């Protein structure tokens, strides 16, 4: 039960219920699709760039609470960041959810995103948490092929 409470934190449940930036950005060339064939989750992420700054980020998708909340919080976290900073965030986030750094260590960099530390106790759910980040990364690289977690 303790583990479950850590996984499904109030903020995560809230972002699952009412995801932020859950919309399309019509006129940006930077978007990508992500797919988790294991659970059938699908997500599209859009980023708008102003020079090398992410001026807007959004997503639409279908998935579990972890993947939706992760996408929602990600779009908030990367807005206003440089592309290089967003990629650093992605790396730190990956380390957090795979349990390679503690929330304390990454708090300064990740801020709110340390809420996902509980995912590291659920190895099969790591892909749910990171799908949106992989997809954003692909959007930044204008990848033509959909991202897949497999």
């Amino acid at each position, binding site marked *: *039960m303790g*583990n*479950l409470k850590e*996984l*499904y934190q109030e903020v995560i*449940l809230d972002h*699952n219920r009412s995801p932020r930036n859950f919309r399309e950005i019509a006129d940006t060339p930077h978007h990508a699709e992500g797919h988790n064939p*294991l*659970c*059938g*989750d*699908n997500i599209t992420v859009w980023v708008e760039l102003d020079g090398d700054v992410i001026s807007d980020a959004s997503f639409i998708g*279908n*998935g*579990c*609470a*972890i993947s939706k909340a992760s996408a929602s919080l990600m779009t908030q976290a990367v807005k206003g960041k440089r592309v290089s900073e967003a990629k650093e965030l992605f790396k730190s986030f990956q380390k957090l959810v795979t349990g390679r750094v503690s929330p304390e260590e990454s708090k300064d960099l990740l801020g709110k995103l340390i809420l996902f530390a509980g995912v590291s106790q*659920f190895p099969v*759910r790591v892909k*749910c948490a990171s799908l949106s980040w992989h997809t954003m990364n692909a959007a930044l690289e204008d990848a033509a092929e959909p991202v897949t977690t497999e």
Partner: protein
Amino acid sequence: MSAPSGLPLPDVNAVPYDVDAIRADFPILEQTVHGRPLVYLDNAATAQKPEVVIDAIDRFFRQQNANIHRGVHALSVEATAAYDAVRAKVRAFINAQDDREIIFVRGTTEAINLVAQSFGRGAVGRGDEILVSEMEHHSNLVPWQLLAGQVGAVVKAAPITDDGELDLDALRAAFTDRTKLLAVTHVSNALGTVNPIAEIVVQAHAHGVPVVVDGAQAVPHIPVDVTALGCDFYAFSGHKMFGPTGIGVLYGRAELLEAMPPYQGGGGMIASVSFEGTTYAPIPTRFEAGTPAIAEVIGLGLAIDYLNDVSFEALMAYEDELVGYAVQQIGAVPGVRLIGTPQERVGVVSFVMDAAHPHDVGTVLDQDGIAVRAGHHCSQPVMDHFGVPATVRASFALYNTPEEVDTLVGGLRRVNEIFG
């Protein structure tokens, strides 16, 4: 209650069934998971093994291990006899007419691929149609798509109804003079639906169409009689019927098997080999190239004995009540939508919840020691039909209990509390 004559009515529920004794035969059921007693409701993925099966495999490697059909020494003779005896046991288990109609393969998947490549390539040509149903497991779909690609044929799918039953009128209408094969499941792994195979076979044969039946989900729940069903091929896996992994069965009518070329080449499947040419062994050996899964075959034999000892009559009465209770109890949890409401159902209850995605449901239940499957169950066309990406699937076997259903329902209520 008593009959008007004053005599007690026979108790229709009095099929002797001691579920506690059955549970005691399965060592893994004593486990705890996350500190809770294991509630194993993922039987459609793979079933647990009774001690007799585990012991048989252990004994084989300790006392009997030798290769078969190739040694004159005592161990090889003994292993060969044990292996061959299981073929007769499988024949009786599915009421085939001839031991030669039983081919040992790795599982349902390999059985269907064998039929697709060895039979299908001869039977299906350019412009022909292979008929499947919308409720097939990917293993009874992708091998036909591969074959269709190879020979220039098309795969057509007969639809299911919103109850998750085969639409028999649509199936009847789907036969054309280009239909060369029908591949259909006996029991749906995603919905639990039992299809009226005998009736379907009569229809198909009226059009001269041979029928391949995927029996993976049928054999642990209902007695299978391939002679009564009339099908041309029947495939199943040992591991879903309390036997080992790595072993399965393809039944094929002897007349068809005899005309089919080998599926794989190698040792054991030849009559004679030279550089001028090789002649193949008769059936079933022709289709069993290489050293087979000897220990697993022997384990499968013990699983069949186990099922026969319990008796299908008893386990069907028990499971019918159990699954009926599960459908009713799960369906009564607020926010649950059952996926598939077939008249004839065994083993499987699939559902989604308003409050949470199937994956989240699976994670919450796992913390209570409850093992279910969350996903598309290798049946994406079924998910598409119902407009869901995935479902939660609770699947039952002869050792599950109503108390476990209650534990599951408690877990689902907790999902509502967490996500509500």
